[in-house]
């Protein structure tokens, strides 16, 4: 049988967005792969140059709709560092809470899309059911389910409602109970293990070289978590365990799955700790100046890896240049390595496990 290219995208059930994975198959085996991205390029970096600093938060929300707060946050952090704005302690803690809630929601969205990738539609419905809990919490916090527009330069937009910690505690308790069901559905399913174990392997050296970050890098056995390694906000004071694949055979889809899955629990733990450690009252926001000059960057542990914003100001009230470093953009460069030698059906098992979000990738 001759080798031929199969377009998986731009409109394909596998892509979860608008991009194209071209794979060259020999029968069923992938001999080459080439991602084609840019279908969703909206010119963020250019648009942000004509909007005032504060108003860009609305834009950064829309970088990735499943993980809005983390992206707005890293932008606010970068601009705040450029302006030299100190965030009050309660504001920092609120940021941590919102980030972790968003991380859980984002990971659940990933879990929801990973199920149907493997033909397990039940996983989708279950994960979306639990995602509602966290969307409700985020809604209580920010007023919106999507595109929350919550972080601000120098803090957060508003304080949390009364009894928010109790609500979080209740939801998280319920959620942790439900996680056992997921383990039955995923971890204990022989077929799931057959599909994910040993496919899409990448070595740690390759992963570092190609700029793979976040859970995908930790799945290779590298203990690298920016919340720990380059702490921002109040993550230094939180006691948590970055989820690293400790087994011998890392770097495959299963390791990525396990790392991400365990992060759900870890993030819930962080939220609970944050409520214990945060000051009960106090300012949550400081006023930021309108104009700024200089440069600043911030990198955070986004749900998908290392998110970096590099902002340059020239004394105007708008950024002179903004650069968005999307973790998915970098991971996408490494996908041919992940794919080569696997079967055509593994494309979904691999690309689902790296958690692609097209909005942030194409900017």
């Amino acid at each position, binding site marked *: 049988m001759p080798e031929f290219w199969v377009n998986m995208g731009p409109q394909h059930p596998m892509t979860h967005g608008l991009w194209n994975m071209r794979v060259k198959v020999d029968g069923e085996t992938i001999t080459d792969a080439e991602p084609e*991205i*840019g279908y969703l*390029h909206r*010119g963020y*970096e*250019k*648009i942000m*140059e*004509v*909007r*005032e600093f504060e108003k860009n938060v609305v834009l950064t929300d829309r970088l990735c709709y499943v993980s809005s707060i983390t992206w707005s946050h890293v932008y606010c952090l970068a601009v705040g*560092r450029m302006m030299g704005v100190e965030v009050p302690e309660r504001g920092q803690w609120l940021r941590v809470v919102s980030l972790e809630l968003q991380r859980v929601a984002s990971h659940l969205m990933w879990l929801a899309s990973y199920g149907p990738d493997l033909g397990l539609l039940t996983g989708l419905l279950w994960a979306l059911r639990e995602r509602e809990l966290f969307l409700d919490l985020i809604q209580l916090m920010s007023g919106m389910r999507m595109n929350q527009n919550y972080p601000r330069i120098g803090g957060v937009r508003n304080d949390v409602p009364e009894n928010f910690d109790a609500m979080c505690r209740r939801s998280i308790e319920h959620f942790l109970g439900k996680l056992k069901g997921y383990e039955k559905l995923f971890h204990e399913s022989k077929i799931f293990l057959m599909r994910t174990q040993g496919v899409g*392997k990448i*070595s*740690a*050296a390759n992963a*570092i*070289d*190609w*700029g793979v*970050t976040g859970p995908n890098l930790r799945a*290779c*056995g*590298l*203990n*690298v*978590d*920016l919340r*720990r*390694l*380059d*702490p921002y906000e109040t993550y230094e004071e939180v006691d948590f365990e*970055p989820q*690293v*694949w400790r087994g*011998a*055979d*890392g*770097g495959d889809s299963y390791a990525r799955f396990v790392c991400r899955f365990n992060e759900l629990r870890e993030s819930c733990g962080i939220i609970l700790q944050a409520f214990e450690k945060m000051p009960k009252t106090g300012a949550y926001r400081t006023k930021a100046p309108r104009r700024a000059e200089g440069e600043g*960057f911030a*990198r955070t542990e986004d749900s998908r890896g*290392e998110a*970096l914003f*590099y902002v*340059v100001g020239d004394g*105007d*009230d708008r950024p*002179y*240049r903004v*650069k968005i*470093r999307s973790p998915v*953009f*970098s991971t*996408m*460069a*490494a996908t041919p390595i992940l794919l080569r030698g696997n079967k055509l059906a593994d494309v979904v098992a691999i690309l689902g496990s790296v958690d692609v979000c097209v909005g942030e990738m*194409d*900017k």
Partner: protein
Amino acid sequence: MSAATAPTAGYANRPVAGIEEEIYAQLVARFKDRLAWARVVRPRVVAIAIDRAHLIEVCTYLKEALAFEHLSCITAIDWKDHFESVYHVSNWHNGCIVQVTARIPYDDPRIASVVPLWHAADYHEREAWDLMGIVYDGHPKLERILLPKDFQFHPLRKDFAQEVDRQYISRRKLKGGK
């Protein structure tokens, strides 16, 4: 190096206190006269500026001697009279990040590619070429990545006018401000 034999012990995932001063000292000692400027920005962040001719030298030193294995980001900036290519290179062992700013003249937007050092630079350099028009010499496949293949311009350049006024007019601007 497979994942099983990776020196995970080397990745303690804890920031090393005072690492920025150490890195700064080493960089200054090594590239004393070739640095346009260098400073410690904040804990774990060092920023240096160089000319484009020294880029590969500095990057090789960072990667090989100082174990900066991870290229986080490449940014191209249009300063109207010159370009800058900014590299954020980070170290997974101690959490330090070095910002290398390379200056590129406006009339000759070329700089050496760092893909041989970090494959991560591949897409970022393609993107910088795509949006800013800086040619990265030695890049294996310098093609449009985000924009269509037949696109004619490099839209992030400042002379690629954005229709600011039609999109967004600030109150200050209405009053005749900047």
